[in-house]
């Protein structure tokens, strides 16, 4: 069930009415209802994989209590944590990485003249597995660290793991932020519902009107990268950078908006990353819930920046390597992750930061450089396999043919440029006037309704959807 589908709109309308009309009166009723809706939402895609969420939830619910009961310094505490890691990462490893490692091993064996064919498992990657695995892991780790008390309410815990707005593509919520919200009766807050609704509409507009239209150009370019000239390849890469951002941030905004309409607060996942003035800043603005997860559960335990520069660099590279792998089981993602690690370790101090001295203009140059470097790395992220990525970079460096508009006509391309310009203008306003959104929420009813109407009609009349455009999934569903 996609957020940008009629099925979901009907589903959510019913959920909203029943939730506030009937279920929100008791805590248990509310949590049971959220859990049932979340399982329906996930099972709509493939009910068989509900078993994985159930196993993950049950094991961490039980293990969390065991960890809490074990005395500080007791060996069993560590064993229980290892068990939680083994179960969750085991499931993730089996479904996401097993074939990747087998392929890599097979490649190695072939180099040694051995036959390693037919080792692959015929398995499907369950939607959202990386997201909910990290979410539930944060629960047991926080209990182990003594930062969180284990819950005794299984329904609340299961609802926390499977909470449908953020189940399949985040934000990856921490148990200490989200779980307590399932222990409180939600308050019907009209202002929160209004702002949630606005976020949902805005997210849908970004996804359907801009991101999916960018996809027309990007898909056409990346489907046949060999024939691209350098300017078309450059635009394709840049468009993909915007598509990825708009697609994923749209998902996050819709998720946050839906949760808000149900009286649940989710964490912010994006903060205008393309205005970041350094790579360090970029990663504190891009997919914040994942970046902070890696920071808290990997980078800092590895020693963070508390030891030598070399150790810091090593830790950064480990985090980016694993972040790349988190995104996808392929060497392309590994390279993409490592590249971004190198940007942070090398480019930030040597090339980006020196522009700070130039003031406002320097800051703009910094943002442009960061965005361009990030864009360049995305060739590995988007291309099909190593060969595809090389084709894209070869096209970028090579041919001098004329720029070609791909996947759409000239007027549609021009609209796209206007939309992107408008988007960046809105980002800039939000960056410089953080209260702009709140002021909009409190504007007169006619203004607000005009915005709702404009966004809705914009989605219907300008959206990139329809027959023969069947695949409209959010990009991050594949992770």
């Amino acid at each position, binding site marked *: 069930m996609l957020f940008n*589908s009629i099925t979901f709109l009907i589903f959510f309308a019913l959920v909203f009415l029943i939730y506030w009309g009937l279920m929100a009166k008791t805590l248990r009723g509310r949590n049971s209802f959220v859990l049932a809706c979340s399982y329906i939402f996930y099972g709509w895609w493939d009910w068989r994989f509900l078993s994985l969420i159930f196993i993950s939830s049950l094991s961490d619910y039980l293990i969390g209590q065991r960890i809490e009961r074990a005395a500080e310094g007791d060996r069993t505490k560590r064993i229980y944590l290892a068990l939680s890691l083994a179960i969750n990462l085991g499931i993730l490893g089996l479904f996401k990485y097993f074939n990747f490692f087998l392929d890599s091993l097979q490649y190695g064996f072939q180099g040694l003249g051995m036959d390693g064919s037919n080792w692959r498992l015929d398995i499907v990657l369950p939607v959202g597995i990386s997201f909910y695995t990290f979410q539930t892991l944060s629960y047991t780790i926080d209990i182990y660290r003594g930062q969180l008390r284990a819950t005794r309410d299984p329904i609340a815990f299961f609802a926390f793991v499977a909470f449908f707005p953020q189940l399949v593509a985040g934000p990856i919520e921490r148990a200490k932020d989200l779980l307590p919200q399932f222990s409180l009766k939600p308050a019907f807050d009209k202002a929160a519902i209004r702002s949630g609704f606005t976020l949902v509409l805005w997210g849908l507009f970004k996804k359907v009107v801009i991101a999916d239209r960018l996809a027309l150009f990007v898909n056409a370019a990346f489907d046949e990268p060999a024939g691209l000239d350098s300017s078309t390849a450059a635009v394709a890469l840049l468009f993909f950078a915007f598509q990825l951002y708009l697609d994923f941030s749209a998902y996050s905004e819709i998720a946050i908006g839906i949760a808000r309409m149900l009286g649940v607060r989710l964490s912010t996942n994006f903060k205008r990353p393309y205005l970041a003035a350094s790579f360090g800043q970029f990663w504190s603005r891009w997919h914040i819930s994942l970046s902070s997860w890696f920071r808290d559960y990997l980078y800092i335990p590895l020693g963070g920046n508390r030891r030598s520069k070399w150790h810091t660099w090593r830790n950064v590279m480990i985090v980016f390597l694993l972040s790349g792998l988190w995104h996808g089981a392929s060497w392309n993602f590994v390279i993409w992750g490592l590249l971004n690690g190198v940007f942070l370790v090398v480019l930030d101090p040597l090339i980006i930061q020196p522009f700070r001295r130039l003031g406002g203009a320097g800051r703009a140059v910094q943002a442009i450089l960061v965005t361009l470097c990030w864009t360049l790395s995305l060739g590995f992220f988007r291309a099909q396999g190593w060969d595809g990525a090389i084709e894209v970079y070869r096209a970028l460096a090579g041919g001098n043919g004329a720029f070609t508009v791909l996947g759409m006509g000239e007027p549609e391309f021009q609209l796209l440029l206007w939309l992107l310009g408008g988007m960046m203008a809105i980002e800039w306003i939000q960056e410089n006037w953080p209260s702009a959104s709140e002021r909009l929420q409190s504007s007169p009813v006619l203004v607000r309704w005009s915005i709702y109407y404009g966004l809705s*009609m914009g989605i219907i009349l300008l959206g990139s959807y329809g027959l023969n455009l069947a695949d409209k999934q959010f990009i991050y569903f594949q992770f």
Partner: protein
Amino acid sequence: MRSISPLFEICVKGVVGLGVIFTSLWALEQKDAFANEFNPNNHREKRWNYLYKMAEQETPVDVLVLGNSHAFTGLSPEYLSGALESNAFVLANNATNAMDVYWNLRELLKIHSPKLVAVETYPINHRNHRDMLPGSLAHQIRAFNTRKDPAIRLASMFSLFPVDDVPLAISDVVRNHHYVWEGFPERPRQRKVDYNDRYLGRFIRFTSGLTDSLLATYDELGATIDGAEQLISDECIDYAHRIAELCEKEGIKLVFFTLPMYEKHVENAHIWTQRYENLTQDLDAPYLDLQTQSDMASKTEYFENTRTANQHMTLFGSIRAADELGEFIDSLYPGQLHLRADEEKWLRYHKNNSGIYAYSRPLPTDDNVKFIAQDLHAQNFDIDQCVLADLPANPEVQEIWVRIDNFQNGTTPHNKSLQLRIEFQIGNEPVVDATISVPRYEHIQREDMAVFRQIVRKIDIKRIKGVALSDVAPQQ
């Protein structure tokens, strides 16, 4: 005063908001702002427009042919109308399947009462409706959009489409919103259909057959389709049963038939058609297999010049298929479908229909037809009819149609041409005699009669002075 619950207030606002949006879309719809694409061959829309107009004008559909693109390219309703002396109509849409065929029939039965329904079997295939490829779904949605009965549309909507596709199916604005990028201000309007002409659902796409080079590739690469792999889905079987039940309930005769593809295009064709044979036996409905049970599959001029899986028939193929189906129906229900041979209204409706020249008697008062002979005895056969008809597309020439029957003394029309000795005049020149050779119209293959056709210069034929069947190759 009791305060309004906040949830109720939000619901009211939601309903009002949706109302405003729906009203805006409705207004755009009324303005034809995103009407269907201009397409002179928008046969989907044209079919239902005509069916409703025919009902309005009390021109009943007597024989209804249902199917997909194979039916509307591969069966000539004009010739079938002539062969059965009634109104035949092909109600078929691209890429349709059994479920859609059933709903088409449901809607049609609200406005017409056909005596016989003939279902072409391509829509009864391995696919379930929900497994349709996006391209097929696009056709289906456009076809759905052309149907007019609100109740049947509503009843069929959620069977035919996933919920997400429903707005595309019911709204021109939603479906065609991308037209805004395709020259919106100059966007041509839907062609206004002239309802005074005759349209029986056919869409001519292919007029020439397989080329030598393509035939060579069959020898090189083999068949495109393996009949053994062509299964029938449970859903299609279910809807075939529903069609049969509906016909039985309405007292409508039901037959199934399979149009052919080129013989080298399909291997194991008999396995495929046997599946239809079995299905129709279950349904207790007669079945005509033109793939394996006639010589049609061997005629290269009958097939679209393609090796792709979906090979359709040509104009000539469609005429022959109509002949075969007409003969099959006649053999099942002798004379029962020949409802309108003497009906002046029917003959007027079929003015300029060469299917009438081939099988029936045009209206004597038709200004575009001249009767040269009728019920004339010749040696060993009779001339049932000889007419000279104008060709609306080319005023310089005419067609001569001769139908002979009642063969005696072992006479056969096979591989024969007709030698007609005629007395004729051109303009004010003197009347002269000549012999013209009229070749057999091979697309009509009956045992009891033969049709001959020739295009001739515009002349005034006074009378036939003599006639003979000859082995001599016809001269053009």
